[in-house]
């Protein structure tokens, strides 16, 4: 295979000292199936995520990758099989769902910031109302994470006044304010202009460097190569192949994967 083209140049050296995969299981998915009406979206998904893993999920559109990670915090309901997040099984029990959701952060393709609240209020809302953090403390936490994503000066503005890349970084900070143990990213850079993708990827890399357990649905193969310890390829609602990034990109096993890689990296 020809040399990989790394999109949006991740030039900086990545500090891997904190990136340790442990033996502790963070997410356990067994024989999970999901249907939309009669359409079988996810078929027999088996997947274990250990604490500290950084997983990139890729695949053609309609392959079920977004649906898969949306099942992990029950934005979508699965109909068969089992999902256990941090020892809590996801069932229709609302208490368990809220418990899992407060431990799992999620970043969306379209940011989904709350337009009627300032950046700071976006970040403090869940800590104050879900975690019952006192307001002053929540403000401090929010400012800490806004500094981390490098936009503390925007704290008092409204989302509508920020660029797409800035909004997505706020969305990441908002999730982090809940001090989640797992972060899910659902195509975080797909809705961004090219020059803004890098700033969001940098934020995600910084997060990985701190040892966060991450599952990212993304087509940023440069990010996958630089940060992921495992790449999962999905097609037609099934996991077709998973491997380390170097093996996955340089030595893909299935024909479907080869075709996919040639399509996204070919030109």
């Amino acid at each position, binding site marked *: 295979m020809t040399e990989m083209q790394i999109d949006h140049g991740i030039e900086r050296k990545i500090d891997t000292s904190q990136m340790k995969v442990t033996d502790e299981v963070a997410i356990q998915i067994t024989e999970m199936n999901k249907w939309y009406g009669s359409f079988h979206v996810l078929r027999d998904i088996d997947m274990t995520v250990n604490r500290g893993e950084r997983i990139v999920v890729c695949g053609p559109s309609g392959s079920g990758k977004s649906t898969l990670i949306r099942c992990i*915090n029950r*934005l979508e309901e699965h109909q068969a099989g089992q999902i256990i997040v941090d020892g809590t099984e996801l069932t229709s029990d*609302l208490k368990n769902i*809220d*418990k899992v*959701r*407060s431990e*799992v*952060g*999620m970043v*969306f393709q*379209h*940011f*989904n*910031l*709350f*337009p*009627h*609240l300032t950046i700071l209020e976006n970040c403090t*809302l*869940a800590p104050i*109302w*879900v975690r019952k953090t006192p307001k002053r403390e929540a403000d401090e936490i929010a400012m800490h994470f806004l500094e981390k994503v490098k936009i503390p000066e925007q704290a008092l503005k*409204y989302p*509508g*006044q920020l660029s797409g890349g800035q909004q997505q970084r706020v969305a990441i900070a*908002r*999730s982090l304010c*809940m001090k989640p143990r797992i972060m899910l990213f659902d195509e975080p850079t797909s809705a961004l202009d090219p020059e803004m993708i890098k700033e969001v990827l940098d934020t995600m890399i910084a997060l990985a460097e701190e040892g966060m357990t991450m599952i990212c649905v993304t087509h940023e193969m440069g990010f996958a190569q630089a940060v992921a310890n495992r790449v999962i390829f999905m097609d037609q609602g099934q996991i077709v192949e998973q491997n380390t990034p170097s093996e996955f990109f340089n030595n893909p096993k299935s024909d479907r994967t080869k075709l996919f890689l040639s399509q996204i990296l070919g030109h």
Partner: protein
Amino acid sequence: MSNIESHTIAYVRDTMIPEQDPPITETGAIKWLRENLFSGWFNTILTLLSLAIIWWSVAAIGPWLWNMVWNAGSLRECRELLDGAQGACFAVINDRWHQLLFGFYPSSLYWRPTLALILLFVALAPILFPDLPRKMLWFSAVYPFLTYHLLWGGSVWLPIVALLGFVAGYVAWRLVTRISPLAAVFAAVIVPVLWWIVVAAPLDRFLFSGLPWGLEFVRSDRFGGFLISLVIGITGIAISLPLGILLALGRQSDMVFLKSVCVIFIEFIRGVPLITLLFTASLLLNYFLPPGTSFDLILRVIIMVTLFAAAYMAEVIRGGLAALPRGQYEAADALGLDYWKAQRLIIMPQALKISIPGIVNTFIGLFKDTTLVVFIGLLDPIGLSNAIRASTDWQGIYWELFIFIGVLFFVFCFGISRYSMYLERRLKTDHK
């Protein structure tokens, strides 16, 4: 003239042109007139036509208003004073304003509704203007019970016992919410209702027999005029908004039973004219209630008007909810907010903001619809204007009464409308 040769493009300016005034036709009033009134032959015709219409109207109404008479005991006296000239006889307002405002409320007690109206603005202030101290909301919460006592009087214990019903509901909600949030909602509804039906009346009688405190009682049939419009209108507005929110949420619910109850309610109420509901309230409701229960007519009307407005409100708010992107719900869910918190903090602030024009429309409509109560025998301003005309003194007077009533309604409706525009500006955070 510049001396540039045709074949060269080099050019240097040697004298600077001083700033000059624009031509006279491009400034001030002339420019404004040209642009706004005479910008073409068609617009010029329209302008002249409008001026003619304004002139005719002023010529017709002007003298009538100019010659207005404020001091006279009857329409005949008015005509004698005018001596054949055209003139408005506003003396009728001077003579009967207290009736138009208060109906047959005892005149020695006018201070009670007046005080209630002044306190209304105090109670509304912290709701309308968030810069005011939040502690004032406590007064807003107590205000309805205080006003009930101010207007009707009677036992001071009745509103207090009624208020305790809400406290009972809150306690029930706090106790049950640990077990199940859904059951807590039902408990928060059922417990106060049981309290009001079973406990309230005996407790009130018991307390009143021990401590007979309270203002002089005023029967509902003494109420009238603008007082009755305000009582019905403001109660309707205050209750129909939360009720409408609940109905809109119920209509969106996944729970089939709840959803169908809300849909049936909304569609039924919207499919029926308000006047039939009012007749139901005044005539039929008594047949359905156990014999001997006296159920205040004003209260029945308030219930009907509120339900009517709530059904419309629910649909207006549903429109606002539908305009919100799904991502807002998902983001709230993903952060671990439960249903009620997500509604209160994320969904409703945005949905209500979108719905402000529709909500205000419904408010104003409700307020003006209160004049329909004249058909079931309540003496609102319209009803009283009929009564005033029926007296020998003022037989045959129309315009003056209706202008006065119209101005009263206009002041309130225009106030609501201006506030809603202020609110829309204040809540504008999307920077589109």
